[in-house]
């Protein structure tokens, strides 16, 4: 299963706007979304925006990227244009439905 569009965009922004290499950028995003309990294959633009707002700046600072806040703002802005692909139903969506019987 391929990584989600939101994940790919976040990697692209980090690679473009920070000194991190492609591999470092992808690793940073992967670790950050994992710390948020998310998965690179299913993370949505909304979830990625929350991660960018709350966790990513700190992760970038720990990797010596100084202008993390600016990068995160850019990422959140660009995530607005990404459409959510609703291909696979997530387990929490199923359990939400089952509870609303």
């Amino acid at each position: 299963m391929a990584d989600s569009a939101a994940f790919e965009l976040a990697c692209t922004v980090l690679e473009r706007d920070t000194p991190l290499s492609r591999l470092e950028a992808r690793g940073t995003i992967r670790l950050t979304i994992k710390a948020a309990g998310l998965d690179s294959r299913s993370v949505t633009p909304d979830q990625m925006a929350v991660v960018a707002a709350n966790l990513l700046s700190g992760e970038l600072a720990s990797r010596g990227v100084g202008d993390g806040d600016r990068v995160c703002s850019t990422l959140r802005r660009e995530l607005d244009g990404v459409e959510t692909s609703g291909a696979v139903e997530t387990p929490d969506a199923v359990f939400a439905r089952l509870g609303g019987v």
Partner: protein
Amino acid sequence: MEIIAGLSVGCLILTALLVAIKTFALWSRTRGTPELMLAMYLTCCTVIGYPLTIATTRFSPAEMLPLHLGVPVLMSAGVICLLFFTLKVFRPAALWARVLVALAILMLATGGIAFFFELTSETPRPIEQLLGVNLINTIPIAFAYFWATGESLGYYRQLRLRLRLGLAEVAIVNRVLLWGLMTLAAGIAVVIGLIGMVLGTFLSAPFVLAFSCLGIAHASCLFLAFHPPGWYTDWLTRRTPAEAI
């Protein structure tokens, strides 16, 4: 002891019946596969299968052969529904999961056929002596429960992290946890049942007490997960995400 056992069985069957009816009703509106699998699992294994399994301890195969032949079929059907529920909800695209489900179904079918031939033979052995057949039947059932537990509790761990960022709802996180605990209780009961059968002490007091406690835990988790009373949902939503995890 008998009162506790009766209470446990009654609570579990009634709770499963309630949740199964509600889930069938939900399925009639949504036509979702997970709803159907959950409702079928509860109906086959708990609402009908569980009391009939207890009945098999009261009547020998010679007295009631159709009961002894029907129960494994019913329980296997329920377990297969549970396997498909876990597959569909947690691992819809994983090839390894499909292979494991297929293997489990194959084992259930093999065990069922072996059980059928044993019971319909001229001199059927008592169930306590059918260790091989019992193992073939029990392994996929235990796998179905413990796999569901592993997937649920693993997903619960992810949801806890999301909760801190406001990316998950407390009620849903709790429901996933309760489902994991419910399947864990059922899985432990299956393993204890096998041990009891091997030792020939299936109906001894310690085993009945263990089954009763696990049954009450099972029923409580099922009820709170899928039919939570108002006070419980209020209590959950009052807790901050930090407290809830």
